[in-house]
């Protein structure tokens, strides 16, 4: 079974919650799909890491010994990435989308493509099983594709190592990497918080989840910071037939655990956050075929 933890809004406690679920599961494949800001490896310090290069795309470069500054490439670029600076044609690296059109239209074959090869896909073992995570190099695109590779690798390793459960710690937002994370999975847990932004982003995330017809559950984290908003979120979930499976109070042990390199169920197993999280784990376990 594949389960993803997502949040819409960042910073709701999604990764801490996912880390705790993984600690409760004991025998699991944990995959970090937040390739922009992977954090699970900080807590779990995976071992025997295998490293694979991920080519996220390409960038165009000009060979100035051939370029005549004719400007044809400028006319064709759909990303405003090529301009003339002091009479010289220049490519703005950060705007280049790697479509290769300039390379194809250049009458002098002065443009070639180089791979963006700084991103990595890692896999290894950790104290509760196996772990896969991706790290997208700053400014590189195609995070959705890297997430797909994280998922492919996860499925392959889960089969090889007899893990029945794959848990994905998803990226924030609702864009391409989130869609890659949730496409075709069994269940989504959305971790939200009782703030206007939390509810707004939950609604956007839920629209994305409904779009793919995936079974969703909601966890309200730090629910006691604003009881009125918590009630509003519960009503919204009820209206949409989405179960609220846990309410976690604000508790400094969550941050303390992180500082000490532990999940909060490891660090403070008797705290209310840990007890309520273990109930979610019970629900998942009993409903797993």
């Amino acid at each position, binding site marked *: 079974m594949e389960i993803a933890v997502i*949040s*819409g*809004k*960042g*910073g*709701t406690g999604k*990764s801490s919650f996912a880390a705790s679920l993984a600690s409760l599961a004991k025998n699991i494949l944990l995959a970090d799909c937040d390739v*922009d*800001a992977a*954090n699970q490896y*900080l807590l779990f310090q995976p071992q025997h890491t295998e490293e694979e290069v991920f080519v996220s*795309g*390409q960038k165009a470069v000009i060979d100035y010994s051939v370029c005549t500054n004719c400007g044809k490439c400028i006319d*064709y670029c*759909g*990303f405003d990435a090529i301009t003339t600076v002091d009479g010289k044609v220049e490519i703005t690296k*950060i*705007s280049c*989308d*790697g*479509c*290769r*059109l300039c390379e*194809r*239209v250049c009458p002098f074959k002065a443009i070639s493509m180089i791979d963006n090869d700084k991103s990595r896909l890692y896999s290894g073992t950790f104290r509760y099983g196996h772990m896969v995570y991706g790290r*997208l190099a*700053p*400014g*590189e*695109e195609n*995070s*959705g594709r890297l997430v797909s590779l994280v998922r492919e690798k996860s499925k392959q390793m889960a089969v090889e190592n007899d893990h029945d459960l794959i848990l994905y710690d998803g*990226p*924030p*937002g*609702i*864009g*391409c990497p989130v869609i890659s994370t949730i496409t075709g999975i069994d269940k989504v847990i959305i971790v939200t*918080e*009782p*703030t*206007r*932004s*939390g509810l*707004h*982003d939950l609604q*956007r995330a839920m*629209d*994305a989840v409904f*779009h793919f017809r995936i079974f969703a559950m909601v966890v309200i984290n730090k629910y006691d*910071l*604003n009881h*009125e*908003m918590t009630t509003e979120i519960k009503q919204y979930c009820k209206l949409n037939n989405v179960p609220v499976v846990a309410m976690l109070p*604000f508790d*400094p042990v969550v*941050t303390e655990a*992180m*500082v000490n*390199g532990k999940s909060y169920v490891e660090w403070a197993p008797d705290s209310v956050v840990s007890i309520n999280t273990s109930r979610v784990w019970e629900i998942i376990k009993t409903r797993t075929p």
Partner: protein
Amino acid sequence: MINSTHKIKIAIASGKGGTGKTFVATNLFYALQQAKIPVTIVDCDAEEPNVHLFISGCLTKSFDVTQKVPVINESICTHCGRCHKYCSYNAIFHVPTLQVIKVMEDLCHGCGACFVACNDSAITEKQSVLGTVKRFDLANQFTMIEGRTKIGVYSSVKLIKAAIAEAGSDSVVLFDSPPGTSCPFIQTAHLADFVVLVTEPTPFGLSDLKQSVETLADMNKPMGVVVNRAGIGNSDVYNYLKEKKIPLLMEIPFSREIALTYSKGLLISAMDEVWLGKFRQLFDTLTPHSWK
């Protein structure tokens, strides 16, 4: 009086989500508004725009941002496969033996390579909506601009550029940046004069802060850091800032009162004069002479 320092573009960003970017950006906006300094705030977090929850105004303009996608006229198409070959995004599905050709619009980046590839004039273009830019005017010279992607759209970059272009450059412009260090963030930071990174003093916060700092250093962008929820976590973030000689612009302590105010969609600087003063001061530390 308006001078050049009142025309800077400031991006408020963070690697990690939920560190308080929107909190800082909206309170800074309010503090400038109270000081009668013309200001525009642009919500560049187009996947999850939240600024509108804190700042509202009159909707004065709204337009869709589109990109061109190809339409293949199958009665003319000779199934030569050149468009499929030219497409770097696998957005043209082609099975020559079955004479099947199909445009996968979700994968198309609108680069136009397929139009160039086709020798038979079988491809025409249509516009596909990526999202909407809305402009809200609060009063003369105080404006909020929001970019909002349509659900399921692959990239928010084009929308962000359009939202920022709408802001012009006749006032202070604040960008509430998208999280992370990939293209949406880079595009936003690229168009700013200064980047304020908001972090929290935790291991996750530090790890993501490092990525943002390295990215901005590569871009030669001047930057400073606001530590939010000070008091939780540990001192590693502070040590890192010292080591890298990055200015600590402001500290916001963790407090239930601030969290509650934010959760209701209210601005702390509108409720508490002390915070109004602190955000006004934050702006003063951002004027160019302090970082050039």
